[in-house]
């Protein structure tokens, strides 16, 4: 009985195999034409849908960096034929000619440059560009032949016309099938999809550039399915995109796709940074599977190529935040479809998130105007900060070295006396105790410090008001290193605040050059007046005065919403809380009757603050001859806050390498007053 069941089982399997055999017979012998016909008309393109890069926004919601519509060009290799792609030898020849032509143009440009210094810079830049270009070209030429050979072997030529009736089809099948229109077998002619020279003319590009782009796209295609579109040109002009879109018969196999370009407001160019096309390092970073662990999208190579990535500034630091996740769609033409194409969304595109900053446009404009007055060979920086929240409302920098000097360590001069003053008070020295200022004090074996005036016997508040170097230098020497170091910490000067701008455009960290254990008596005296080993960034100095203005609250600066510190975790510094009233009175006295009393804008702003003038060595070749034979040039500072009785905003302005004799209050006092008035009227 059960053997019959077993027999039935075997018979059932054999019958199923017979059915499958019959199906195979139907497919391979009876219905073969139908399936091949489907293939001839079925067309499928996979497209990466680029996300819109998130906007970077001012505090009021207007964009600092935004996207504008643009177009890119993509190619479907499946719809090309062999003649479109340059043969390896032709590509080498074409690129060689192009390189020679570029070298000639470069040489002409160098020859036309007038000064020797500019010529040297230009030559260096061109040599670097040429080396990078050579590397890319050699890589292309070494890998291209194999991809080309494979492409030709694949025989992907697809746009064909029947030699008898002229019926045109796009086919992926070898040209041996019958024409679906007239039934003639095997009489097809391959039609060239487009003329490469015509495309180059339309794009206003060199033929070699288009050839190289095609070759690079083919190399990418070798690693991807044939039906995927590959980026050919990342940016093309709208008229070219229109021409290609409107005349598909002239440019078969090409697709002009919308692709946004990035623009930025020049006001905050230094903060926003720039975007650029991805490099090999970006490719490696964005396709790294380890990104999944961080909850980030793992890009495919095809998705990376047309994307924009941040080069520096906020664009680079928040690149993943801004870039978004590309979508994927498939465009299909079916053999029985009513519509010529249908687009299926496979993965919805996720646009990049906006990045909210704390920058106020009007204040930023004012700050930019102020730093524009900085000497061309030097630098200038201006910062406005909200004392209550730590928000940076404006941050501007102008410099000959391209660095953001709001972040660069320089000698702060007398604005540093606030730190010495707190150390004096915290150590328990009597603020009423007078110290004699004799204009200069000689230090054994090392030199001397100089006070501009012989103040005579002078106490803390008056010394701060009149910026007496004699008082602070002598008191610093009495204090020793440790109280000064503790005072640094109270004001947050030991910290390098992360505003999200990255390290690339920051200056070197000056304080790292030495520690308190190395300070000798001479060093202490110079540090006490903000000279010698004392260096700080404008950001650190404005933060220190904001902490004073906030009555000892440890304000932390922030620029972008994702890095905003938790307001509930704000601590207060006990030393600063104890001594803030006296120090605030001293800072107010500076504006009312001290070094800043002549600055009208400071008075109008009802401000308190401190001027600073740091002497730095003059450098031949850097400082202009008009500075004469003076040994030193000046860094001029003013840092202040307003209103003095209920502080809301703090601001700092610094001009580096000003002429000898320039004074902090005179040069930077009124600009700080203006920034504070603008800030007070803004909110």
């Amino acid at each position: 009985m059960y053997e019959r069941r077993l027999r039935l089982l075997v018979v059932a399997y054999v019958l199923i195999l017979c059915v499958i055999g019959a199906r195979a017979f139907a497919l391979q012998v009876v219905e073969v034409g139908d399936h091949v016909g489907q293939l001839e008309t079925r067309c499928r393109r996979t497209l990466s849908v680029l996300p819109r890069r998130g906007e970077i926004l001012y505090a009021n919601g207007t964009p600092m960096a935004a996207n504008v519509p643009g177009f890119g060009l993509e190619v479907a290799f499946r719809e090309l034929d062999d003649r479109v792609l340059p043969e390896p030898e032709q590509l080498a020849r074409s690129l060689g000619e192009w390189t020679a032509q570029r070298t000639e143009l470069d040489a002409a440009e160098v020859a036309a440059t007038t000064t020797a210094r500019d010529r040297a810079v230009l030559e260096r830049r061109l040599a670097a560009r040429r080396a990078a270009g050579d590397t890319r070209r050699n890589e292309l030429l070494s890998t291209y032949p194999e991809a080309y050979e494979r492409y030709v072997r694949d025989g992907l030529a697809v746009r064909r016309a029947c030699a008898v009736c002229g019926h045109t089809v796009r086919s992926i099948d070898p040209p041996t099938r019958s024409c679906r229109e007239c039934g003639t077998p095997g009489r097809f002619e391959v039609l060239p999809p487009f003329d490469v020279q015509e495309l180059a003319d339309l794009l206003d590009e060199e033929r070699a550039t288009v050839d190289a782009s095609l070759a690079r796209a083919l190399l990418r295609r070798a690693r991807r399915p044939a039906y995927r579109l590959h980026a050919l040109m990342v940016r093309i002009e709208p008229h070219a995109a229109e021409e290609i879109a409107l005349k598909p018969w002239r440019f078969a196999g090409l697709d002009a796709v919308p692709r946004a370009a990035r623009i930025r407001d020049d006001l905050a160019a230094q903060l926003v940074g720039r975007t650029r096309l991805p490099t090999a390092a970006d490719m490696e970073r964005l396709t790294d599977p380890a990104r999944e662990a961080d909850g980030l999208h793992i890009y495919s190579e095809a998705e990376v190529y047309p994307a924009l990535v941040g080069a520096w500034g906020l664009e680079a630091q928040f690149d993943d935040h801004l870039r978004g996740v590309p979508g994927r769609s498939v465009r299909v033409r079916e053999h029985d479809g009513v519509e010529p194409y249908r687009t299926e969304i496979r993965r919805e595109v996720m646009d990049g998130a906006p990045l909210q900053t704390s920058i106020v446009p009007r204040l930023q404009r004012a700050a930019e105007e102020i730093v524009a007055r900085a000497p061309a060979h030097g630098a200038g920086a201006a910062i406005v900060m909200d004392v209550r929240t730590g928000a940076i409302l404006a941050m501007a920098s102008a410099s000959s070295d391209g660095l953001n000097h709001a972040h660069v360590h320089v000698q702060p001069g007398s604005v540093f006396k606030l730190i010495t003053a707190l150390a004096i008070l915290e150590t328990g020295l009597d603020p009423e105790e007078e110290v004699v200022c004799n204009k200069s004090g000689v230090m054994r074996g090392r030199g001397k410090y100089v006070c501009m005036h012989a103040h005579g016997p002078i106490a803390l508040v008056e010394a701060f008001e009149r910026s007496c170097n004699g008082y602070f230098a002598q008191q610093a020497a009495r204090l020793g290193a440790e109280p000064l170091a503790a005072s640094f910490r109270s004001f947050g000067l030991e910290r390098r605040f992360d505003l999200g701008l990255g390290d690339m455009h920051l200056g070197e960290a000056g304080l790292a050059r030495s520690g308190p254990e190395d300070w000798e008596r001479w060093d202490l005296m110079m540090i006490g007046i903000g000279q010698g080993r004392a260096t700080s960034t404008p950001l650190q100095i404005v933060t220190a005065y904001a902490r004073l203005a906030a009555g000892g609250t440890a304000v932390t600066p922030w620029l972008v919403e994702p890095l905003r510190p938790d307001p509930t975790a704000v601590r207060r510094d006990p030393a600063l809380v104890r001594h803030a009233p006296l120090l605030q009175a001293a800072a107010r006295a500076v504006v009312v009757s001290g070094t800043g009393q002549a600055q009208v804008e400071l008075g109008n702003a009802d401000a308190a603050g401190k001027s600073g003038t740091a002497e730095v060595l003059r450098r031949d070749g850097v400082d202009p001859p008009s500075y004469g034979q003076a040994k030193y040039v000046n860094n001029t500072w003013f840092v202040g806050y307003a209103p003095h009785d209920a502080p809301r905003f703090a601001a700092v302005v610094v001009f580096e390498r000003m002429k000898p004799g320039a004074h902090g209050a005179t040069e930077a006092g009124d600009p700080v007053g203006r920034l504070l008035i603008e800030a007070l009227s803004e909110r």
Partner: protein
Amino acid sequence: MSADAIRPPLAAAPARWYLTLRALDPRVLAPALVLVAIGLISLAADKPVAMLSQARWCVVGLAVMLAAIVVPYRKLLALAYPFYAVSLLCLGALLVPGLGRTANHATRWLQLGPIGFQPSELAKVAVVMVLARYIRFRRDHRTFKGLVVPFLLTLIPLALIVKQPDLGTALMLVPVLFVLLWAAGAQRRHLMTVVVLGVLSLPLVYSVLQPYQQARVRSFVEPAVVLVADLRSGADEASTDAAAAGATNSARAATSRAAAGAPDRHHVTESLAAIAGGGITGQGFREGFQNRTDRVPESWTDFIFSVFAEEWGFLGVLILLLAEGLLLIGLGSVAFEVKEPAGRLLAIGALVILGTQTCVNLAMTVGLAPITGLPLPFLSYGGSSMLTSWLLLGLALNAKAHRPLVFTARDFD
């Protein structure tokens, strides 16, 4: 070597090596080797790198088969329950984060040093062995109540395999259970009742399927709707990306859209195009257009038949089907010859697994069944699949080699 030379003395018990050699039944081995050769040829055309690895696995598989023949199957069946427990442990280990290896969005591989294997392949063998062990000498499976234990023994690994998810392999266990019970004499009306209940519960089962699995089913039952979402890189990708991106609302929406709206025929369309392109004589070795242009997805694993059919045409397909048929008939003959219940059930188990997997894979490739992700035994690339196939053959041949003399009139009586 003459037959006398290897014959042991009459008085002595047959030597193990003698039994092993006697077990190497050409009715089974010859078609299996032909199939392996066809698989290697197809891989050589599609993915030459994989061919060398597959050849190595084939040699290892042959060794495994010989090892499976050497130890008498009754001794092996004595270890059926521990083996079953080990396979359950391995399946359970996949549920522990970090132990399993995930590929194609399913955690199916357990990594042992440099080697990864699929516990679900082990589970298929374990279920056959444990059912054979349980059912032999019993009669209670002929009652409705007696079906409970065999069903439980099958459903536990099935549930764990579904969890991976690997619906195709999980569903393989269902025919194994039914056929073994049926062959062991279970009442037809009992089995039919279970089948009817199963059919009635299909809507419920469908609702708990993964989105891509639902899409596969819909693409099969709605062949008129021809869309081109790529299953593995479509709905799956959307869901993975959604998880990676913290499952924001729009990502979740994308997932559900991909899940709801993508009955897919892309795999099948490309596969049919490849098979049809082969014609009667085929396009020639390494000349298949669909194969050269990488159009058939998973062409070296699940869809290897289309590669072979495109390059060797209908004539090649006939040879392949003939080899498959001969293999199944050979396994059936082995089962016939074994009268002892447990041995016969082992042989039938091997027949059912290899036969069902072959039929489902081929039917899927020619568009007669939904896509299940089952490999074609002996042909598809994959070490676990190759080893399991040879192990099953080994168990069936073992049953034949070590079969005892049975004096009852009918088996299971």
